[in-house]
């Protein structure tokens, strides 16, 4: 095998490309100067300003609520869909369901957003619900596109699953529902956690779909950030980004460590 200089150098440059912009963002969040790129001394005043901005805080809280409920609905719907597709091999409309659930994965956000908005408007004039748009319509929209991702994650775990455990439980007289809650659910739990986290992140991150289906006074955090950033630099966005990056980095490192220790434990058990 060639141990040349080419691979290490491109990899180093690649990681530099990925991380330098993020690092400069973090560094300049501690800059005293309003001009984000001119350094004039260490300061944490933008963090203070961030936490004193009711618009930003309100939007952050709203986004967390939306992400929590969207991820939870998407988890339930996506898991049901995955169970239907993996466990029930034959039913009418299976191919349609399989195609429809994966379609949101390739659908551009602008189309998803526009389509749902037009649906909500049409529904409002036909049956009077949803009355206006706001947090509820955003949750519905996010649940729909996130459920596709949950389905993919849970589906791959379910199809790897050893069927004999479920069959054994059935033979011992457990009903299908009980088998699902007692056997299947605990085994696929890690996939459910990663599916929920993925859905939560996607919902928290979405700007385009939320912009279409939100109403007055229900701006999510990405919408507020986008309108600020579009007008130019804003140091409090740097501060916010630093907090988000810190939280995510901690979470990912913790997940890695848990994964490592589990791997080690299984290895130790296997001897």
């Amino acid at each position: 095998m060639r141990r040349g200089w080419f691979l290490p150098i491109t990899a180093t440059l690649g990681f530099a490309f990925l991380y330098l912009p993020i690092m400069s963002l973090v560094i300049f969040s501690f800059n005293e100067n309003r001009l984000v790129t001119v350094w004039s001394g260490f300061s944490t005043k933008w963090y203070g300003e961030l936490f004193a901005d009711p618009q930003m805080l309100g939007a952050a809280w709203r986004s967390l609520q939306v992400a929590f409920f969207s991820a939870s609905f998407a988890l339930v719907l996506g898991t049901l869909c995955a169970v239907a597709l993996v466990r029930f091999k034959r039913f009418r409309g299976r191919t349609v369901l399989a195609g429809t659930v994966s379609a949101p994965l390739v659908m551009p956000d602008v189309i998803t957003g526009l389509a749902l908005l037009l649906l909500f408007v049409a529904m409002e004039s036909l049956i009077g619900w949803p009355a206006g748009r706001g947090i509820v319509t955003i949750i519905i929209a996010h649940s729909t596109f996130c459920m596709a991702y949950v389905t993919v994650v849970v589906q791959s775990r379910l199809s790897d699953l050893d069927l004999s455990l479920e069959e054994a439980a059935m033979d011992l007289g457990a009903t299908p529902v009980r088998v699902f809650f007692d056997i299947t659910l605990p085994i696929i739990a890690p996939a459910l956690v990663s599916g929920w986290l993925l859905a939560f992140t996607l919902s928290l991150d979405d700007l385009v779909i939320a912009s279409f289906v939100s109403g007055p006074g229900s701006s999510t955090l990405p919408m507020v950030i986008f309108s600020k950033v579009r007008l130019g630099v804003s140091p409090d966005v740097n501060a916010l980004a630093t907090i988000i990056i810190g939280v995510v980095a901690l979470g990912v490192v913790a997940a890695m460590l848990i994964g490592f220790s589990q791997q080690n434990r299984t290895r130790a058990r296997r001897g």
Partner: protein
Amino acid sequence: MSDSPRLPPRRPWTMLERSLAAFGLSGRALVIAAPALWLTVFFLVPLFVVFGISLAVKQFGRPPYSPLLTTDEGTVQLTLHLSNYLRLLTDGLYVAAYLSSIRIALISTLITLLIGYPMAYAIARAPERWRNILLMLVILPFWTSFLLRVYALTGFMRGNGVINQVLGVFGIEPLVMMQTDFAVYVGIVYTYLPFMILPLYTNLVKLDGALLEASADLGSRPWQTFLSVTLPLSLPGIIAGSMLVFIPAIGEFVIPSLLGGPETLMIGRVLWDEFFQAANWPRAAAVAIAMLVVVVIPILLLQKAQDAIVEKGR
């Protein structure tokens, strides 16, 4: 009832099964029906609504489009306008935007591949204890906000940004990078690089080292081995990674609007402006339908063909 004494009756699933049975539903039917119903109402029906409204015209009022069905003294009249679609074909802006989206997405996918492939290869060839850490470094940006990463680039590339300040130290004139197509390419490559690296890594890490040794023993130079062994074997990873970049890039809105200039035409941005700036809902709907036909349906067919090839290969 299958309620044998072995099953404690107060368990939640027994309650669930009983209440389902009371409505004459089997668990199986409900498992299928719930997601199917949700997707029908909130995914399939909206697409038909978009198609319907694309056949209306803009008018002032609530909702801001002409009704398709009108009743006039007991007769129901259906009015369909093709003007939006005619406009898409005749106004050069829309055709140019579709073409330029495809071009920008293709070129940036290619650049992402050229950067991502050696990175994935380097990670796959790295000592095992390093691999997980390097992979984590690739995945980490994906979990942080997409919007904030694009914003990080604006701070990097703007007129008095980090790059130009570094160049200034060496006495080089500041470069104009923001609000150009160049910035859009950088933005797409920057944000979608992890999507390219992950499938490539999964593929390359499985590559059998014996094949490479065999090729070397038979007298191939390293680049010959790469072209005749590694590259063909990693084709599934290349296709998977390229699709993961190309598909979202083509409908991208955030990157062209924050990094691109006024002349950067991308169809996602055209749709957005049609809706939010011009408030022309029917025109935006027609743009969406055209996008479905021109872009999304070919991608779905392509994916199907790709799956078939992968299945065949097994």
